[in-house]
């Protein structure tokens, strides 16, 4: 599969301020040197616990958060290093579905007006053309075209998700960043939303970046997975390989802790140490070393590089050669 989007050495700093007569408050390194590629037509899962920077990574790729360093390439063309307004124009092929559907829609605006606004901003006209596209996209996401006369409070959680999807699909994007697309949905509604996402990808030839913390959903939906910990990617691999044989100690811990629908899994089988450190006090060297059962002195000194290893996966760990029976490429 051809590369459609790639980021290299992406760094995003958030916050930080100079304060009068007081110590400067340093910014948080929310995304700290992330490199990854998105291949045309795939679903890439980005997984991590809260505060690991997965949403900030999505917002930076989208262009609404400006990168501090690093490059973003779309179809081989560099689209980074510009102000957010220009970045959004250059990255029109990339669209974002907000994780809280109810908060993402204006309660005073009918669904039709919300969808129309997206088209107007992007210079689609005339009115009849926009109306036609709105009707078609509502049908695509499984809603009746009469939904456009309704308001967000009249719709259920699952319907609201469909509206937020319709709002980005009406712009005919090629890449959709889905930020926790099923968080807060009931199991039966989640299943229908996931099925819709699958069908839309096949019909419209979309590429997804699927940001989630739910490993069961990621396993079902994604072709490849990137695991993040405190702003850095620690492992990427094809989904089946990652779930069968995780290499990075953090991936191992995360998979062991995730609840699965399997009885007799044993509550005490997995080794879990400590809680994630605050993003304002990231440990030196490998950020995971404070909770890692395999940490040695060297882990505190240098940040491990994301090495490409034999089965096509990448791992950022000083000790992976001892932990996995695989060879460096």
């Amino acid at each position, binding site marked *: 599969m051809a590369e459609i989007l790639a980021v290299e050495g992406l760094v995003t700093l958030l916050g930080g301020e100079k304060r009068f007569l007081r110590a400067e408050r340093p910014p948080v390194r929310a995304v700290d040197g992330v490199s990854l590629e998105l291949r045309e037509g795939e679903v890439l899962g980005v997984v991590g616990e809260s505060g690991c920077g997965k949403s900030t990574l999505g917002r930076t790729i989208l262009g609404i958060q400006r990168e501090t360093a690093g490059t973003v390439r779309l179809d081989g063309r560099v689209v980074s290093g510009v102000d957010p307004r220009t970045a959004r124009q250059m990255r029109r092929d990339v669209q974002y579905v907000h994780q809280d559907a109810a908060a993402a829609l204006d309660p005073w605006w009918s669904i039709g007006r919300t969808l129309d606004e997206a088209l107007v901003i992007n210079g689609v006209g005339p009115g009849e053309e926009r109306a036609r596209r709105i009707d078609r996209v509502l049908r695509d996401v499984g809603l009746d075209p009469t939904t456009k006369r309704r308001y967000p409070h009249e719709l259920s959680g699952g319907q609201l998700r469909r509206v937020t999807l319709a709002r980005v699909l009406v712009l005919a994007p090629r890449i959709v960043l889905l930020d926790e697309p099923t968080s807060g949905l009931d199991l039966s509604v989640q299943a229908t939303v996931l099925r819709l996402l*699958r069908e839309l990808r096949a019909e419209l030839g979309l590429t997804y970046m699927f940001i989630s*913390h739910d*490993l069961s959903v990621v396993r*079902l939906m994604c072709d490849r997975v990137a695991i993040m910990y405190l702003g850095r990617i620690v492992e990427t691999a094809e989904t089946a390989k990652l779930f069968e044989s995780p290499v990075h100690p953090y991936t191992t811990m995360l998979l062991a802790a*995730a609840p699965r*629908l399997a009885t007799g899994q044993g509550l005490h089988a997995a080794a879990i140490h400590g809680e994630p450190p605050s993003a304002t006090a990231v440990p030196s060297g490998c950020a995971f070393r404070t909770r890692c059962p395999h940490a040695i002195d060297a882990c505190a000194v240098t940040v491990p590089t994301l090495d490409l290893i034999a089965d096509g996966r990448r791992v950022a760990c000083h000790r992976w050669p001892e932990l996995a029976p695989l060879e460096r490429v």
Partner: protein
Amino acid sequence: MAEALLHVDGLRISIPTDDGLAQILDHVDLEIPKGRIVGVVGESGCGKSTLVRAVLGILPRAARVDEGRIGFAGEDLLKLSPADMTRRIRGKAIGFIPQDPFLALNPVFTVGTQLLEIMRWHASDGRAAHRAHLVELLRAVQLPDPDAALDRYPHEFSGGQRQRLLIAGALACRPRLVIADEPTSALDVTTQLQILRLLRDLVSRFDVSMLFVTHDFGVVAQLCDDVMVMYAGQSVEAGPTAAVLDAPKHPYTQMLIACHPDRAQDLAGIPGSVASPLKPPSGCRFHPRCPSAKPVCHGPRPAQVHVAEREVACVLYG
């Protein structure tokens, strides 16, 4: 099976609203044997929270109990006066662990002040004895440096630590039953597993039973001995976790478990939407969405029958 500590029989609760009478619970049966962790699972609006509120005696003022009883340690909780519920049951014989550890603690008081207040309300051993007991509990919930922790404020603790504090609070007055309302849904998975382990250990160490409300079947599989599944205010299936999750019998349980991403290859979902409590379908409330529905399902609600280790309320097994 061991003797039941909590026994909910045919509970029916309705609440008058502007749009008419909402029949929130329509026949709920639940049994919590001594020393066991029972998970109550269901989608939003199924009445899980109303069931918990009924057991704790904190139903909305307008709510009406139409039928049923809540047996707890030989008494019917529905017959107790509000004063009795406050003095003897809620916070004392029945402890409560809330859903969101970030909202449940008051930010302007130290955690010691807040946790000691629970004990001062329910026991008269004196402050020093309370404090000593509390330090012991904080040690049991594995909070680092328990003595100093009492003088700190909620913001100084992480989410996982705050949940540990609240668990200690629930255990403070030596309860016999602890009700946990989605206590880990605000936590990350690694922290969640640590809290689940802690709950499992405390249940045997303090000899309590637990009612664990959740919407996550994965957590039920990790923690609970038994599980009860609710749909639109009715209990539909209850039994040992392994039996129910591995071979569900009620059509709703079957379809719901088939929606779980670990099982769902075709992501079928459940056609239709949840019945409104204002105009609930007659009989089994699931019948409008059920692929096996028969005319008899419109009739009286099917009685629970014992099939393959569990209780099922469905005519298919009658």
